[in-house]
């Protein structure tokens, strides 16, 4: 961290007297506490508080006793989860959708950013960007509403067109086999523009001299994209990829819950929606917490693994 190095060099206190200096600094700067204490309280209550509740995963929750006094039942909840016939299905669904997302939704914003970067007319570029970001600002509910209106089996926009062309209507919303496609496709429509911002930002940092010297060597536009732009934004891509890996087991229940119906449930039940339903609808608190914990642990393992791999094979990593 360059900021830290700067701080160290700027400080006029020798390292040997660091702890004393820390006390001294605290005495001089106690007033920061006024700002930071409410923030720390927020994190303690609303982030670490629920983490304390994670013990429910190993307990049988009794509302009368509360979280702390509920009886321990060991790993029963996990055994139930791994033994449940739902388990392989929700695991498979989560992974299939996320792998599709990684293969399709992840590269498209990068390609989009590289293409935007080639546009030289600033106003055109701005307009295009404004349009591509717009769907991100639509709420999840409205977004799913639009999906439904467009893809409905009867009277849906797409199926109306297919009908005019003499093709049988496709049950996009009601057939399990289409669910992951619809989910990822709509995800591309909504988020590609927004996700490209970070790569556009990275591209704006590419040194123009690299392009000039490549041009002098006779590199075409395409060659320059591949050999100049892409390597320059590689660190950003790697970081984003690691973060994506850390979400491999997570799909936001907000959207999936809205897209679910009794006909496509076979393909649309994922870990997060399962945790929501077992927890807040069936009130099976301990079990639902176990599902959530399982999800979270796998995510962290994947994140750390991806980070380690990135560290070994490229120069950039998250930590």
């Amino acid at each position, binding site marked *: 961290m360059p900021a830290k190095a700067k701080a160290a060099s*700027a400080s006029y206190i020798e390292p040997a007297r660091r702890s004393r200096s820390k006390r001294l600094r605290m005495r001089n700067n106690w007033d920061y506490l006024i700002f930071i204490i409410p*923030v720390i309280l927020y994190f303690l209550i609303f982030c670490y508080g629920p983490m304390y*509740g994670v013990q*429910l995963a190993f307990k049988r929750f009794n509302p009368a006793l509360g979280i702390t006094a509920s009886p321990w039942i060991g790993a029963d909840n996990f055994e139930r989860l791994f033994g449940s016939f739902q388990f392989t299905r929700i695991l498979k669904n989560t992974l299939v959708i996320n792998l599709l997302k990684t293969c399709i939704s992840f590269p498209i914003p990068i390609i*989009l950013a590289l293409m935007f970067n080639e546009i030289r007319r600033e106003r055109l570029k701005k307009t*295009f960007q404004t349009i*591509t970001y717009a769907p991100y600002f639509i709420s999840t509910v409205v977004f799913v509403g639009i999906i439904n209106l467009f893809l409905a089996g009867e009277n849906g926009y797409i199926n109306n067109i297919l009908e005019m062309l003499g093709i049988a209507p496709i049950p996009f919303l009601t057939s399990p086999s289409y669910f992951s496609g619809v989910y990822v496709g709509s995800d591309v429509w909504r988020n590609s523009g927004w996700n490209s911002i970070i790569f556009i930002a990275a591209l704006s940092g590419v040194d123009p001299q690299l392009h000039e010297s490549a041009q002098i060597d006779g590199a075409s536009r395409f060659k320059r994209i591949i050999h100049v732009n892409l390597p320059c934004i590689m660190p950003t891509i790697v*970081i984003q990829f690691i973060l994506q890996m850390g979400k491999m087991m997570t799909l936001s229940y907000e959207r999936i819950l809205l897209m679910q119906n009794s006909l496509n449930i076979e393909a649309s039940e994922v870990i997060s929606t399962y*945790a929501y339903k077992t927890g807040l609808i069936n009130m099976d608190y301990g079990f639902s917490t176990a599902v959530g914990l399982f999800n979270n642990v796998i995510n962290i393992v994947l994140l750390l693994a991806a980070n380690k791999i990135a560290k070994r094979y490229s120069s950039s990593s998250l930590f």
Partner: protein
Amino acid sequence: MEAASQRIRESHGDRLFLTITYILIGILVLAILYPLLYVVSASFSDPKLVISGNIGLIPKGFNLEAYQRVFMNHEIWIGYRNTILYTVLGTAVNISLTMMGAYPLSRRNFPWRRSCMIFFTITMFFSGGIVPMYLLVRNLGMYNSMWALILPTAINVYNMIVARTFLETTIDEQIYESAYIDGCSNIRAFFSIVLPLCAPIMAVLVLFYAVYHWNSYFEAMIYLKDRTLYPLQLFLREILVMNQSDNVMMDSIEMDTSKFLVAEGVKYAVIIVSSVPILMLYPFLQKYFVKGMMIGALKG
């Protein structure tokens, strides 16, 4: 100058490549824009024509019946009022707490900077999950109150780190130094130095948080019970996703088919009515949030 010299060097292959790029981007932009414009057009059209797929980008059989029904529905107004309240209040809480956290974290003379940073960052990767959170909200007595939508999401760690990075990089240490020499305390420095200089990042944070509050439905769905407390998104969910257009909107219609038609028209209108405030706001704030994302990207 630069553009001119570039044009001279441009080879045939490059020009072809550029043309293809433009065409591809054009197709993409159209693919994104078309559904949005279609919804606008359909909302003004005769539902019968919409359902049979006869509508393009220009409304046909212009009628405002759907809008009339949406505006006459008092629940939509309740939802609107609640959403505005939650968005304004929630964003105010978000901004205050985020800046209060970002400021000390950005300061070198704050002794626990590093430990605080670790303490906060952990929560980005590990969370208690949905049930512990739900029980916590219930235990704190916030169930079925608007505070359940505001306090548990009061700070977004990522946004706080972005704000911290902004403060670190834009406000020079020397400004603080000279203020300290004049006897300025850290509290005073926050109000006299930091706040006046951080308008761009505040704009970004306002946009991010306000959009979040405007668009979220899940917290409201699990924490709120009274319909009078529902935000707009929950009423939208009933209309758009659960296909339960309120009876108020449907009264005085007997025929089932026309009921269905009106419900379809209402869907398009309600999408427009609910999304217009945010979509109107955002092009004006665009330059700020691109900047905000760039600060985020810098940090990585």
